[in-house]
């Protein structure tokens, strides 16, 4: 499929990076944003796209999406308006060798759907014992390094990993959770876990790990990103660190903005998450962090087959399918929090792009034409059949959500039309 010259007419253009929110035409040529408002000289459109009543925004940038079956998940991504995504290294086998990364990059480029940005393993086999070949991994295409959900128990090795990454100015991403405090835990250590007899993960598992990471980052000067915060106390630590000048960024998963421990109900394994869903007060603190721009939002897409969830709660695998719900659930949050759309969309476009350090999430003239066109008011019913992802695991099954993607462009090519 070639890049065409496109004239996207009458849409409401929202570009958080450029501070633009108005009804205006968009022109795409040679895979790039050619002009806004008036067509560039000599422009002739191969296709006119009527975006009346629709919103035209940068393609979404997802800070964390697991791919499983790569083709189905990248189709799900573009159906959800996601045009760039970072893939954590806990693939099978993990992304700790350049060859594996190259293969993932090639495969995703061949598919020509969403752009895939691999995150390399910080340690070999993610075992937390020996540093991975970060330099080789970076050459192969890794844009940051992390342990995904695996711990580095040895804090000296964590310090070394940060020092080594800082040497080459590689970003390090950590999911802050103390291994020992979280041991065997499956739910927030609070009212619901106590009642249901589930082993709890205390908030201190997160705050202790955040404090450790912040101290070591301060010492090494590494670019640190903390993934998937779950607690208000964790947010407070990061807010304070930022105020004192530490260069740290963070994100929350869209699920944690909407759900809390009570959504576990009677052992609903679809509400098993890592980190766990915490109290309603924690959820409010995460919402505040997202609305004031401290935290970006990711889907934390984790597609699982049915077998992974049809187990007793503690034995079920954590995580939810999220690529196709990222936009609707962000819109829902914006409505509930009475946030202007441009601010909400920044959390899933320009903010994550800037955290990843990639040229994406913007509609500025000359940038790659990665565009999402959606109807913010169109409702749809979340069913297994409605999801293109192989992962039908979401606690939102059976719910109605607003926000349907009508068209997704990657580099000016129409990769999804619905």
């Amino acid at each position: 499929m070639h890049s065409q010259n496109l004239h996207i007419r009458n849409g409401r253009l929202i570009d958080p990076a450029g501070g633009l929110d108005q009804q205006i035409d968009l022109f795409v040529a040679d895979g790039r944003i050619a002009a806004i408002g008036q067509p560039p000289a000599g422009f002739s459109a191969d296709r006119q796209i009527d975006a009346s009543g629709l919103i035209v925004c940068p393609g979404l940038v997802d800070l964390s999406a697991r791919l499983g079956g790569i083709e189905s998940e990248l189709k799900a991504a573009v159906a959800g308006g996601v045009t760039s995504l970072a893939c954590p290294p806990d693939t099978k086998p993990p992304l700790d060798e350049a060859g594996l990364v190259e293969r993932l990059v090639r495969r995703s480029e061949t598919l020509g759907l969403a752009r895939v940005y691999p995150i390399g393993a910080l340690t070999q086999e993610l075992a937390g014992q020996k540093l991975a070949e970060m330099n080789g991994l970076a050459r192969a295409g890794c844009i940051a390094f992390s342990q995904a959900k695996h711990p580095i128990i040895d804090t000296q090795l964590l310090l070394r990993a940060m020092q080594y990454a800082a040497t080459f100015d590689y970003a390090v991403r950590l999911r802050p959770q103390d291994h020992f405090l979280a041991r065997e835990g499956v739910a927030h250590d609070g009212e619901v876990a106590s009642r249901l007899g589930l082993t709890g993960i205390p908030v201190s598992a997160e705050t202790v790990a955040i404090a450790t990471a912040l101290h070591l980052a301060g010492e090494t000067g590494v670019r640190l990103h903390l993934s998937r915060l779950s607690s208000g106390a964790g947010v407070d630590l990061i807010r304070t660190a930022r105020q004192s000048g530490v260069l740290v960024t963070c994100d929350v998963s869209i699920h944690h903005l909407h759900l809390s421990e009570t959504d576990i109900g009677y052992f609903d394994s679809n509400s098993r998450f890592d980190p766990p869903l915490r109290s309603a007060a924690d959820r409010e603190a995460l919402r505040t962090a997202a609305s004031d721009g401290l935290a970006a939002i990711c889907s934390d897409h984790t597609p699982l087959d049915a077998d992974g969830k049809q187990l007793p709660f503690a034995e079920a695998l954590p995580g939810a399918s999220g690529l196709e719900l990222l936009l609707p659930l962000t819109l829902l949050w914006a409505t509930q929090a009475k946030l202007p759309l441009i601010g909400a969309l920044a959390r899933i476009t320009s903010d994550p792009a800037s955290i990843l350090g990639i040229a994406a999430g913007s509609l500025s003239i000359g940038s790659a034409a990665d565009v999402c066109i959606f109807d913010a008011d169109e409702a749809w019913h979340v069913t297994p059949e409605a999801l293109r992802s192989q992962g039908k695991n979401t606690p939102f099954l059976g719910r109605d959500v607003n926000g349907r993607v009508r068209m997704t462009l990657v580099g000016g090519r129409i990769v999804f039309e619905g």
Partner: protein
Amino acid sequence: MRNPQLNANGELTHLLSIQGLPRDVLIHILDTASSFLKVSDRNVKKVPLLRGKSVFNVFFENSTRTRTTFEIAAKRLSADVINLDVTRSSTAKGETLLDTVDNLVAMHADMFVVRHAASGAPHLIADHLRRLGRNDVHVVNAGDGRHAHPTQGLLDMYTIRHYKKDFDQLVVAVVGDILHSRVARSDLHALTTLGAAEVRAVGPQTLLPTAMETMGVRVCHDLRAGLRDCDVIIMLRLQNERMNGALLPSAREYFACYGLTPAMLALAKPDAIVMHPGPMNRGVEIDSDVADGPQAVILPQVTFGIAVRMAVMGILAGN
């Protein structure tokens, strides 16, 4: 969200947990158990309530005692009882929990009595049966992880009601390893539902779950304060693996701080009763002089347990 134990008419269709069951459902079970208690005293210890029905005892975790009491109860109701020790058969071959259930449903099981090491396993089975449209198959939770052991909770309430009068006059202390105890959770929910005047959870911080106050109980770390003027004392079993130094320094120190001795018992009301779900660790959580003393009602608990389990199975089969 509807309580998954109740059908659309609010009748008990599974017994998964005490939590969320209305007071009148609990009272109905206790009253029914009362009538069944007499059956066990008769020459012919049987009623035909479950004749032609198949009760499958599916124990994913070993427990001879609990399984035996369910087996006796089902047989006194004239049911056919099939005991499956799943720990040694299908799951060892890699079959999932729900595969096992599907197979047993295909064998025309009418009722499952389930014990499982994971909290929530009986809920999963009940939910699976609902999705299969098998509302005629009932699940009784015989203990799941740390979550619930509802028939034990009910037999404890039966015992209390037998020896004491109104729940709203009673101070009840539950003492010991509440964190790991499904019995304690069921007792606490039952006591608060039945309106006990005061329920105390007594133990060291390492053996108490977080946010206990939200369960409507008073937390006491001091055994003396916990026992003072109590009407009922429920002692919990301390499992050996808890004494390895991570949660408690030693069994000796535990007994010194939380063991029920005659001197400690003297702090409670003179007519206080002492209960224990068994099996007891003499000299760890309870002194033999107390366990064998006049205030202990530990053996009557076992007898009442049969009647309570008969009541539960009888009620489920009728709904």
